[in-house]
């Protein structure tokens, strides 16, 4: 390795960016060339001195308190925003809800009647078939319930409510 090549790679050497063989090559050059060795030592000392000079930057008193205060202000701001959003949504939706109440009770009653009819016909149907069929039907419905709760849980997990508010 020549001086030119060595000098170009001193920083990489100091920052541990060279491969093991490249390290050996450059170290071999340092052994025989005091000029490159001196430059390496000087740059190494400079890096260390840079770290120390930043480590000794005076920190203004009361900085921590200032930061904590700004975070508390942020907290109050977001909680206020959440309340405002909730009230706003309620105000928007209340006239719609009032309009819908009569229609809703009718729909619910209709659903109830249909449900009761289905339930009654199911009972008469089930009393006619074998108990094995009922058992397998039960197992099947348990599987359906478990998989659907899993899917719903996953959906809720992926949806982050606080992002909507922010």
């Amino acid at each position, binding site marked *: 390795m020549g001086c030119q090549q060595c000098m170009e790679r*001193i920083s990489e050497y100091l920052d541990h*960016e060279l491969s093991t063989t490249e390290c050996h090559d450059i170290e071999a050059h340092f052994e025989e060339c005091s000029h490159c060795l001196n430059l390496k030592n000087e740059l190494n000392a400079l890096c260390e001195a840079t770290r120390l*000079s*930043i480590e000794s*930057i005076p*920190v203004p008193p009361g900085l*921590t308190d200032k930061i904590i205060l700004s*975070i508390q202000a942020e*907290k109050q701001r977001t909680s206020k925003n959440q309340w405002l959003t909730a009230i706003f949504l309620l105000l928007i939706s209340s006239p719609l809800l009032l309009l819908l109440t009569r229609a809703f009770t009718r729909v619910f009653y209709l659903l109830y009647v249909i449900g009761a009819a289905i339930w009654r016909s199911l009972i008469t149907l089930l009393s006619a078939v074998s108990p094995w069929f009922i058992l397998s039907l039960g197992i099947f419905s348990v599987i359906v319930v478990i998989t659907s709760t899993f899917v719903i849980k996953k959906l809720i997990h992926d949806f982050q409510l606080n992002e909507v508010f922010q």
Partner: protein
Amino acid sequence: MAELDISLIEQVLSGDSEAFNRLVQNYSAYVYRTAFAFLHDKSEAEDASQEIFLKVYRSIHHLKDVHVFPAWFKKVITSVCLDRIKLKKLDIVPESQIESISSSLYNPRDIRIEIREALNMLSSEERELVLMVDWQGYNYQEIAAILKIPLGTVKSRIHAARLHLKKILSDET
């Protein structure tokens, strides 16, 4: 950076607001010094520190793993500082004024202050590179990714920046 306290980060993630205050106490000096080294301005560095902790406060809850906190935190600090440098370039302040004020306040023989002044005399690109490698401890690959420049450019520019810093310091004495 101060020794990472994993249990403290876990407490913060569990929503303990006192724990977040302790996080600020532990790291505010490191954050301020880093911001000052990048920006070389007291009030700018204070503002940047506040901005950094607000960013951490807003998004720390998205962290899935406590162990990625140090790298993530370092990234937040770097990105806030680099963004502010970009903005600063748009309205340049007379730097010579700042230098003369600060050098008259301190003992000019203090090598640590001399280096800080010399860092400020580098171009902002050179200063960014020196700070990212020597102070923040990024490797070349990470720097190339953050600054979106080729690895070869990172290598040559870091070396050139160090040589420039060395020259500034030897010219002063």
